């Protein structure tokens, strides 16, 4: 009754360990508690046969239900152990024969013990397993149809056809014997019986195919979404990363290359890790990052920003960010330092920023008109906003600008 050879299956129908590993209740292949799915996975046979076995045993004085409940109570859920997915290994022919004989022996045993009832159990068993065979074969076929380009149908197709014929024969024989043995069915009238039988046969033969069709549709939609995402990603990479790489190849200035690479890196990071796209800064930290980015691209000097704490950008903090942006640009343009460090600390009562470079430095007492102007504009802006700015610098010692604004 068990198929000799399971054709190679689509990757989505995961199969588990054969005759080994821990027995668990399946989470993805379940109708009631996943017990049948778990047993099938462990044995490496299609779940439908395990279900058929339970159904047949149920006819034997409800023995199947008792077995199932016992299994439900004692067998742990798959998630408790994780599912170790191993290559698909259906059982060998001797194992299949062994399984079938074992099940047959169990039925005979139950019959002997006296749990058995009625003469219709044997034909019902025939019918159930015949239906299982047809169902399994048909659903495997519709799965294979998806991968027909990879594996043209050959010997396997004729074999599965003969298996379907065998399954249908089993079903019909079982059904005929059942109906013949039931007096009550004869009183239902032949028309009703014919309709019932036809409907059942139709469902069994075409059910898997309809299910497959639905499955195809879902798969197709998923594939389309994935390809759209890929196109989106490709478009973005083309606009940004590839353009930058091209620019870097054309540039022979190492400093310029570094800046381009850094700017691109920051851009890519934002895109990857900040999908919402915060183009408009809403916090102090974001405002500092974008100010630093502007300076990096404008002056080819890396700016490292460290922000501790953060707060929304508002009227009180905007002047500080604007002054800091000017200080950063100033340091990048005039100090000759390799890197400008920016440290921002937002606390309960104040926002403070330190803009540090280790470049040429200057004497705040006697500086060129240009630099005086800038530092004055920083200081003036801060004092207008009720904050303070302090410039510490010495020739050869670098520059540190400290900005502070109290919270109102």
């Amino acid at each position, binding site marked *: 009754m068990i198929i000799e050879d399971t054709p190679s299956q689509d990757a989505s129908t995961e199969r588990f360990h054969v005759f080994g590993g821990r027995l668990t209740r399946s989470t993805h292949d379940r109708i009631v508690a996943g017990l049948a799915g778990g047993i099938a996975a462990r044995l490496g046979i299609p779940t439908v046969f395990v279900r058929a076995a339970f159904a047949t045993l149920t006819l034997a004085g409800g023995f199947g239900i008792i077995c199932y409940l016992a299994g439900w109570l004692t067998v742990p859920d798959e998630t408790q152990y994780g599912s170790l997915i191993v290559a698909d290994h259906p059982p060998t022919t001797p194992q299949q024969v062994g399984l079938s004989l074992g099940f047959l022996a169990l039925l005979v045993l139950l019959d002997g013990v006296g749990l058995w009832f009625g003469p219709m159990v044997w034909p019902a068993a025939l019918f159930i397993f015949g239906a299982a065979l047809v169902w399994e074969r048909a659903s495997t076929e519709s799965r294979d149809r998806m991968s027909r380009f990879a594996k043209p149908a050959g010997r396997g197709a004729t074999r599965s056809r003969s298996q379907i014929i065998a399954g249908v024969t089993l079903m019909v024989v079982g059904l005929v014997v059942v109906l013949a043995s039931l007096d009550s069915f004869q009183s239902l009238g032949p028309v009703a019986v014919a309709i019932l039988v036809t409907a059942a046969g139709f469902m069994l033969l075409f059910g898997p195919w309809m299910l497959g069709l639905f499955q195809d549709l879902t798969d197709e939609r998923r594939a389309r979404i994935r390809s759209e995402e890929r196109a989106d990603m490709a478009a973005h990479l083309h606009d940004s990363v590839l353009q930058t790489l091209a620019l870097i190849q054309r540039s022979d200035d190492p400093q310029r290359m570094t800046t381009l690479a850094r700017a691109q890196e920051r851009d890519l990071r934002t895109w990857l890790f900040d999908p919402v796209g915060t183009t408009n800064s809403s916090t102090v930290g974001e405002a500092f990052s974008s100010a630093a980015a502007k300076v990096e691209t404008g002056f080819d000097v890396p700016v490292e920003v*460290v922000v501790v704490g953060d707060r929304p950008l508002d009227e009180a903090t905007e002047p500080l960010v604007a002054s800091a942006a000017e200080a950063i640009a100033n340091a990048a343009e005039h100090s000759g330092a390799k890197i400008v460090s920016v440290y921002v600390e937002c606390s309960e009562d104040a926002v403070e920023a330190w803009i540090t470079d280790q470049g040429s430095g200057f004497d705040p007492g006697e500086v060129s008109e240009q630099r005086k102007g800038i530092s004055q504009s920083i200081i003036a802006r801060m004092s207008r906003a009720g904050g303070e700015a302090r410039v510490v610098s010495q020739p050869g010692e670098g520059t540190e600008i400290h900005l502070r604004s109290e919270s109102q």
Partner: protein
Amino acid sequence: MTTIFLVDDHELFLSGVRAELSERFDVCGWSTDVDGAVDGIRKLRPGVVLVDVHMPGGGGLSVVTNVLQTNPDIRFLALSVSDAPEDVIAMIRAGARGYVTKSIEPDALADAIERIAAGDAVFSPKLAGFVLDAFSDTVPVEADPELDRLTPREREVLRQIARGYAYKQVANRLSISVKTVETHVSAVLRKLQLSNRHELARWATERRIV
């Protein structure tokens, strides 16, 4: 001469760093994958291991964890393109003694390695910022003052580092010795590795890194 071992799955970066460091250090081995790294480090017992954070097969985190289980005396410096707090904190919590980004200058990298080899900790400005953020002034409930709070001096040292100053400059600016700066940073490293502050735990659980 300090022996160093390099772990990075990017061959190009690996060979670049190897060339930069071979003059000042004895590069005794390198590996491009987690398993090779763990075996190599156990066999060669280098003075300092430079380990990349993002690698297939568990990443730098599993290299550090696996090696420290058998050889708790090996010193790690994490090296990564990532500045993400969860990566930084995870590596330090796993036992790395320092964290620098790959954009670091060769000389600064060499200094960092020397420092790690001498048993000190290496904090980049970013890492200092994260620690200040995580150990902010809000006192956690049931705090262990030994581990869950920074002393004012430690805080001040971290602030200076976050502002981009090297240890020597920090020492000058605070009028303390370089040795004292190193002691403070090592103390912070210890707190960072052992503290139960909920900010650290939150980072860890939110990003599933514990």
